[in-house]
């Protein structure tokens, strides 16, 4: 097997010096090396978007990125969203509008939505549906997730 190599990752504003194998994916490094298990592994193959993180402002799937490729980028995982103990408006809306059931898709849903709202602060329902169309959820039927994202965007805009 490959020998481990040293990399530096910037995750949620902190730098981590890590010894990893070159073929390790970002999801496994986040979860197993750094201990950020909020990034959920649903399929490990880019099919369910449960492991969505934000890298340099873009929503990306941590299971399709090698950790080694993530060097020099700014990575945000779900653990980095709440600031100073206060939930992000999207997290707040997901809680308040009943958009969470089993919760396994939730971190990915929230981060995909976060990246969407950053680019498009007032998306239409269709734009929300389109942005989240890769994020699978079996529990909710998506109705309340879409409602939560809409309400979060309204809250943010009216701030």
């Amino acid at each position, binding site marked *: *097997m490959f020998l481990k190599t040293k990399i530096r990752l910037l995750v949620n504003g902190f730098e981590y010096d890590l010894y990893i194998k070159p073929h390790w994916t970002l999801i496994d490094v986040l*979860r*197993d090396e750094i201990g*950020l*298990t*909020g*990034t*959920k*592994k*649903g*399929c*490990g*193959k880019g*099919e*369910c978007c*449960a492991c969505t993180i934000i890298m340099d402002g873009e929503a990306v799937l941590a299971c399709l990125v090698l950790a080694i490729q993530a060097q020099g980028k700014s990575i945000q*995982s*779900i*653990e980095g*969203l*709440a600031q100073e103990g206060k*939930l992000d408006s999207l*997290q*707040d809306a*997901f*809680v*308040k*509008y*009943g958009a*969470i*059931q*089993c*919760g*396994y*898709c*939730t*971190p990915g849903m*929230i981060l995909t939505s976060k990246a969407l709202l950053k680019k498009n602060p007032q998306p239409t329902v269709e734009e*929300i*549906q*389109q942005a*989240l*169309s*890769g*994020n*699978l*959820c*079996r*529990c*909710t*039927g*998506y*109705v*309340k*997730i*879409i409602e939560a994202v809409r309400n979060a965007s309204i809250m943010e805009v009216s701030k």
Partner: protein
Amino acid sequence: MKRDYVNIGKRLPRVDAVVKATGEAKYAGDLSLPGMLHGKILRSPYPHARVLDIEIGNAKRLAGVRAVVTGKDTIGFKAGGISAQGDEPYLALNKVRFIGDAVAAIAAIDEETAEEALDLIRVEYEELPAVVDPLKAMDDDAPLIHDHAPRNISFKTDLAYGDVNQAFRECDYVRQDRFETAPIRHGFLEPHAALAVWDHSGRVSFWGSKQSPYFTYRNLAKALNIPLSQVRVIQPYIGGGFGGKNEMFNVDFCAALLSQKTGKPVKIVVSQEEVLFAYRQRHPTFIDLKTGLKKDGTILALEADIIADGGAYLSIGALSLYLMCAFFCMPYRLSNMKAKGYRVYTNTQPSCAMRGHGVPQSRFAAEVQLDLAAREMGIDPVDLRLKNALKPGETTPNGFKITSCGLEESILGARKIIDRWKKQQKKDKGPKKRGIGIGCYGYVSGPRMAGHNTAGAVIKVHEDGGISLATGSTDVGQGSDTVLSQIAAEVLGVRLEDIRYGMVDSDITPLDPGTFGSRVTFVTGNAVRIAAEDARRQLAQVAADALEANSGDIIFRDRKVYVAGSPERSMAFSKLVKIAQYSGSGKTILGRGYWAPEGLEVPNFKTGRGNMSAAYSFGAQVAEVEVDTETGFMHVTRMAMVHDCGQPVNEMLMEGQLEGSAIGGVGHTLMEEIVRKDGQTMNPSFLEYRMPSTLDACPLDILHTDTYEELGPFGAKETGEGIQVAVVPAIVNGIHDAVGVAFKRIPITPFMVLDALKDKSGSM
């Protein structure tokens, strides 16, 4: 009786919502312990084969491998569903029976090493003829999958009530159709995961993604051949179940066995691909259905023959088959019926319970056939349903006793919606046709089955006015932790945020059958109510002394206690607890309660007689579908449901359940099918097995009838599971309405639509 509540019926966020929104909620696969090893399972590449020899030496010698186990390392325990003999070893003993059957398991220092070691195990198989078609599996010369089951019949059921033959002779209209449903999957996103730690005192502690931890609790003891006292099952957060995480699986067993062998914690997380080809599915079925009606629309007789593909093992299939047959008796009055079912073994993935458990298949057939009958007889499909709808106080011929029932009201509500939508529909122009369909259902609020049925609850009152609540039920996402907490809060007159809900730990929390059959709100909810009342009674005595009143006159409401009729004689709830704890030598307030419906006749799965549940929920589902007659594409444009769930405990959570169930039903009807070739699953990925996405979500109107179930906690009944039963036929009937074709196989694909339209125009 209904009254003004502080917590019940309110739109309150889930108690676990914040930790799930922040990623802090830990699921089984998120857990790790010092020195933990990682496990992998070797699976059969053949649908049917004898295992002649397994060579594990090379795998064992690989650096980093700590243990390799096969069936020879087990006592040969075979798991099985309810009341029938077990047939499923956790590791193959001498045969494999489907592609994915577990053959060996490895524990190594990391997943990569375990994966590498899998390739070093050499299994010598003798391939056996396989049978993957349930119809062929019943042939006399079909290969036998289990020695104990001639013609591969895994279970059969034969229900007969009234005089069916005579009733059919009296009918003015009779029709017969064959319906078919495809295998589909539960679709939870969290793969099966287990972490087990065996210590030198002989105890196994286990964390796993289990809907019903006590199945695993008992089966771990049996399969490892250790006393029950040596097993501890602890529940982490669970990433969805839908029936597919009820049973203990090989992943759970192998983690425990490998920990026993190595003395180290062992975690196994299976891949989603493994979930999709090597674990469970919904029973695919063939249903031959005959229904007879009088001219006025009265349903007089029904006869059904069901063949359900059970896959390689029994699982919970006896119950599944019974439910498929028995629920022809609901939600319409029917005094003459025969339903015969065969659950058949095939060399494919085993079938088990899934949301609606067996009923979606048979109600799809029955509701679509009713629409066909109604249209041919010139009766409005809504009128037909209304005419035959069960009413409160009726008993079905198989013994289901209807208590509260809002079906009539639901259908009337659905009619208003249909009328409104019809008025809004534009005159069809162009290739896109719209139609509206209806389907109805009745469902259980917790099934009565042989064995332990009781739910228990324990309440501990804290001196700050907080409450700890423990039950044996799990929240797999449906929101029961919240609903049960609301019930405790209402009884004790505190608020939801005052409740600390404890998850299952078999050492500490009460025994419980599990999370299935929509039983938790209804059954565990009553246990929680009783436990809270017990604690309240103890506190009321203290309050009576302090406020100089009778304990029966003490009211608990919104964090206060006061004397009935004299609200000024009051004190804070937390103060009352402090008085209880610190007066004299002090009291410790602990409430306990357990509950199961009494006097229910346990259903006999073979004859079908018995009363499945203490209360039944009902409802009507309406779906508007747009069909593109040029491409065959179908799109559910909006849905509405009017349902009777008694008093909703939490309207927001209830809506979430209904929405999830409804959109899941869209998948079942229009998208989902496990495709297999010679027993090999061809679409074991979410890209190839398409589940509904946000693009398939549609507007949903939710209305509930004004009903109250006397036996339910605060009047509550089932919600969110039963509706999936009605969603499927509502969509199929909507397509029928749009293009004039009633499809008898689900899922309906665009090709099926185009073929049917071609045939139709050809015959015209």
